[in-house]
């Protein structure tokens, strides 16, 4: 959620570039220092298209105390980090502005697309999920994944290849994470089942007493649905059986469109016209 002060700063900063009536590329990051290769690609694209760049640094957890402290510490560091890119952009004649925002990525993108004029598309930094960004956007979203290795092989100056590599590596890391969670929640579920069946006589005695004891079976299934539900969810993910990314993205995008339509209610108020 952006505060009024934040919005004020943002509008002041964006005004510097929006007044030029150029098309705009919105670069969204939640890192202290944006990924250099991604940022450079964005500047390249902006240069070719003759657009300006607005970099939105998003704090996705503004309510956490530790994050707030971090956020305070981040401000000068972040400015320092962006200075390099600002100079790079200016040397190529690309207008460059930076704003700070708080809240969910989807909401920030939605808000900025609404406030900033002529946003052509959004480029998201690493660590931002495509689904997360797409749900709030009314313009196309792009992610750029660069490979240092490939660029070294190509070995021609600043030329970078953007391709979706590293997916397998990421999948392997997340699979390991799911596997660890499966083990933790699996052990928890096994322990819960063990307790219930080891003490089934006592449990059946109290759990079928009725009256106020009705809360016992209800509470039990809630506890089991948390432990066992987390176990089964992580189990399928660890096996690599997850929801279709293409479908969920399509679903969220189409819902963003239809929700806008759904909120438009016909204006039936009577009006007086004076000629």
């Amino acid at each position: 959620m952006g505060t009024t002060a934040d919005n004020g700063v943002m509008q002041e900063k964006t005004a510097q570039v929006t007044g030029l009536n150029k098309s705009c590329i919105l670069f969204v990051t939640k890192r202290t220092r944006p990924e250099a290769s991604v940022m450079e690609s964005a500047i390249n694209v902006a240069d070719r298209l003759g657009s300006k760049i607005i970099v939105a640094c998003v704090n996705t957890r503004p309510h956490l105390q530790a994050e707030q402290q971090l956020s305070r510490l981040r401000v000068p560091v972040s400015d320092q980090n962006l200075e390099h890119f600002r100079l790079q952009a200016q040397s190529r004649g690309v207008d460059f502005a930076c704003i700070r925002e708080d809240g969910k990525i989807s909401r920030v993108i939605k808000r900025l697309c609404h406030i900033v004029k002529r946003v052509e598309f959004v480029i998201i930094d690493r660590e931002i999920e495509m689904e997360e960004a797409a749900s709030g956007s009314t313009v196309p979203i792009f992610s750029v994944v660069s490979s240092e290795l490939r660029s070294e092989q190509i070995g021609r100056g600043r030329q970078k290849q953007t391709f979706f590599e590293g997916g397998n590596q990421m999948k392997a890391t997340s699979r390991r994470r799911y596997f660890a969670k499966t083990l933790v929640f699996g052990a928890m579920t096994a322990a819960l089942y063990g307790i219930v069946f080891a003490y089934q006589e006592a449990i059946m005695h109290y759990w079928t007493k009725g009256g106020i004891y009705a809360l016992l079976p209800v509470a039990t299934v809630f506890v089991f649905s948390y432990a066992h539900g987390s176990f089964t969810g992580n189990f399928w993910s660890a096996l690599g059986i997850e929801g279709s990314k293409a479908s969920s993205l399509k679903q969220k995008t189409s819902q963003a469109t239809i929700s806008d339509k759904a909120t438009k209610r016909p204006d039936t108020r009577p009006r007086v016209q004076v000629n």
Partner: protein
Amino acid sequence: MHGPVTEAIQFIDLNLSYAIFLIIVGFIGGLVSGFIGSGGAFVLTPGMMSLGVPGTVAVASNMCHKFPKALVGSIKRYRYGQVDIKLGLIMGLFAEIGVQVGIQVQKVILEKWGQAGSNLYVSIAFVAVLVIVGSFVFRDAIKIKKSGGDTGEKPRLAARLQKIELWPMMTFKRAGLRISVWFIIPVALATGMLAATIAVGGFIGVPGLMYIIGATSIVASATELVVAFVMGLGGTLIWAYYGMVDIRLTLLILGGSLFGVQLGAIGTTYVKDYMIKFVMGTIMLIVAVSRFLAMPKYLNELSVTSFADNNVSLMSQTSFYVMCFALLVGAAIILIAMFKARSEEMAMERAQASS
């Protein structure tokens, strides 16, 4: 203990084969529920009774496993952006009223015509609803499939109802529709009444959400899980108040069904929209045949017909097996469609990566 019924209740001794049976049936039921929003638990009550569980305990334990299953399924599908919580809660609230109305109707029938009359009423309701709604849903699914997929057009009735500005109008952002509450109430009441009668309200709820309210089949089936959660929680509290829930049975079914419901929810992200209608229509029509085969037993008990006892017994057994077959067919269609679509998507990803 509360209430007179609990005095005579005998809870069964569980053994390993019973436990495995319940876990497997739970898994298949969960798979179907996660995919079509409901309809996976109808085999469980007769299934448990076949193990010697008293009818009331079977109903109560089944209901107690349904609401956490619906909760886990709806959370999973919410993450895929398919659930309209507001619509689900409003439907659930009125469906709860529908359940109470359905129970009162059952009581009146039980007092007038006895247990056989009540069973016959349940079977007739089953056959009538399943044949009418099931054939409509099935025909629609085939029509969409032949036309090459979902055109995105809303059903005519839903489109007309959405145009009627009758206070109070409500907007459901996730479902992408705006409609008067007066059109939601009858659907919700009918869902509740059917749930009280045949224990599967979703056979009215999901088609109602699709064809009357105007939600897509993906959103309708996902939102039905919220309705099932609200109704299930209310029903469980009542049954648990009378001490009818056998928590061991509930947890065993839940053990299998939470695997199934997650897989069913994942399946909805791979298949085309009409597949939900196709699976639902298929299951409904096969279950209608099953309940039709169960009717002679009750007609004999009411002295309306006089079929031979052997034939009646054979038909009752066949009825149960046909019901299991319906669930297995539904599960098989879901798994085949899901893994086929998944392998196609993976092949496409590989092709993109290599090019």
